[in-house]
């Protein structure tokens, strides 16, 4: 067992061994979800706060259920109905939550680095549920879990991430996690959204979608993030679908056992053809199931993480 971290802030600072520890631990928690009694007392008496300054439904619900299945109490805090509207700073809001004896703060924020900042001012465990375009560590962990479960391994696999990479925190976390675990990662999409600079992260960049998906063992499709981009990145959604969408013709050219993944929410008919999203090789709903197990594992592991060990990082 090799987990000594007090927080989960990003994938970049994790070792391959730490990532594997999360995946191994999540396997046990996935089994808990399949039982008649889906709850264990591991975090009994602990308080978890979902501090979602940027809206989210699936990640928030997933963390909420994860905390509940570990017997913790959970409070949901959303920006729309909060004191942010009245001008309170993030630090003051977090300190107020800590004054209520919150043990875990799960934060989603539009600013990159917000979880790192909170980890420096709070005693509570901080878990990053997505910070700007920086990282979304639990998504990468659940993606890695899903690939490993389906393929039996990650090292040596060809993983293609297709879509809006530039604005995607999922892409960044996935690239860190999968390359650390030995996968060969290829990024593809419009040149404006997939700049060559990503090659510095240890992956390959191409703008030829047919070439990118031909040898892929896993195709991870990302949503076009309307909310994060200016209109000038590509001419139209229709053109994106035409040039980069996973349609039936392109799907027919993929390896017969290539997995189709998507972090959701999916835009049917935009980045993915509706029938492909529902086909047997699509693991989109398994990703949701696995996300719950991975988040339980993360809460369980950081609970044992020591503040002392964190300073060694």
């Amino acid at each position, binding site marked *: *067992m090799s*987990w*000594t971290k007090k927080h989960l802030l990003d994938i970049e600072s994790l070792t391959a061994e730490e990532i594997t520890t999360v995946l*191994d631990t999540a396997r*046990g928690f996935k089994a808990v979800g399949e039982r008649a*009694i889906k709850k264990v*007392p591991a975090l009994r008496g602990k308080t978890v706060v979902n501090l979602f300054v940027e809206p989210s439904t699936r990640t928030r619900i997933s963390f909420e259920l994860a905390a509940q299945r570990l017997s913790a109490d959970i409070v949901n805090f959303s920006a729309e109905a909060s004191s942010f509207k009245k001008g309170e700073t993030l630090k003051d809001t977090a300190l107020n939550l800590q004054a209520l004896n919150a043990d875990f703060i799960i934060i989603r924020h539009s600013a990159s680095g917000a979880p790192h900042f909170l980890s420096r001012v709070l005693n509570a465990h901080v878990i990053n549920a997505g910070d700007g375009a920086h990282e979304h560590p639990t998504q990468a962990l659940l993606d890695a879990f899903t690939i490993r479960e389906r393929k039996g391994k990650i090292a040596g696999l060809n993983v293609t991430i297709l879509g809006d990479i530039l604005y995607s925190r999922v892409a960044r976390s996935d690239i860190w996690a999968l390359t650390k675990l030995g996968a060969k990662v290829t990024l593809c999409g419009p040149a404006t959204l997939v700049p060559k600079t990503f090659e510095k992260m240890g992956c390959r960049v191409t703008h030829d979608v047919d070439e990118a998906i031909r040898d892929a063992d896993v195709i991870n499709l990302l949503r076009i993030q309307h909310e994060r981009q200016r209109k000038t990145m590509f001419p139209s959604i229709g053109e994106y679908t035409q040039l980069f969408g996973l349609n039936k013709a392109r799907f027919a050219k993929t390896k017969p056992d290539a997995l189709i993944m998507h972090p959701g929410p999916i835009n049917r008919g935009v980045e993915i053809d509706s029938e492909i999203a529902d086909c047997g090789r699509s693991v989109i709903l398994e990703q949701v199931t696995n996300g719950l197990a991975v988040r339980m594992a993360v809460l*369980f592991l950081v609970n044992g993480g020591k503040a002392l060990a964190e300073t060694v990082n």
Partner: protein
Amino acid sequence: MPDATVILDATAIQRALTRIAHEIAERNERSADVALVGIPVGGDHLAARLAKILSGIWNHPVPVGILDTSMHRDDLDQRIAPTVHPTEIPFDVNGKTIVLVDDVLFSGRTTRAAMDALNDFGRPKKIQLAVLVDRGHRELPIKADFIGKNVPTALDEKISLLLTESGAAADQVILKKK
């Protein structure tokens, strides 16, 4: 290795398991109600070996499960998170006599966690406890029903088990100074 004593060798381990199996058979007349549940790491191998001996005594297969106790421990915020092992209980525990099998009985806290974890799968009629080694130093009112060997120990000593599922000649239980 200095300060290390072999307290059970492969032959002694097999003999102890055979005796425990006969004691389990003697205590439980309704053999069809008995199932074994091993606590990893160590207890799962022992449970499989006990089940094999018991099925020879009873002339029918004896169900075996594996029960992870890590999520039910009482010290989770005082230590680095323990390894989570898979739990496999391939039978209905309701109404059964469950014999929990562990390698070493020490504080009794793992046994307490195991009883809690088992309750999530149903309500056994009885729970009994079989251990290969009882080293004393209980912190809870827990007592084993079947014991391979009582080993008085000091708190600064450590018991290590080298066990295989089949029971190889190299199997050993060793007592050493920390």
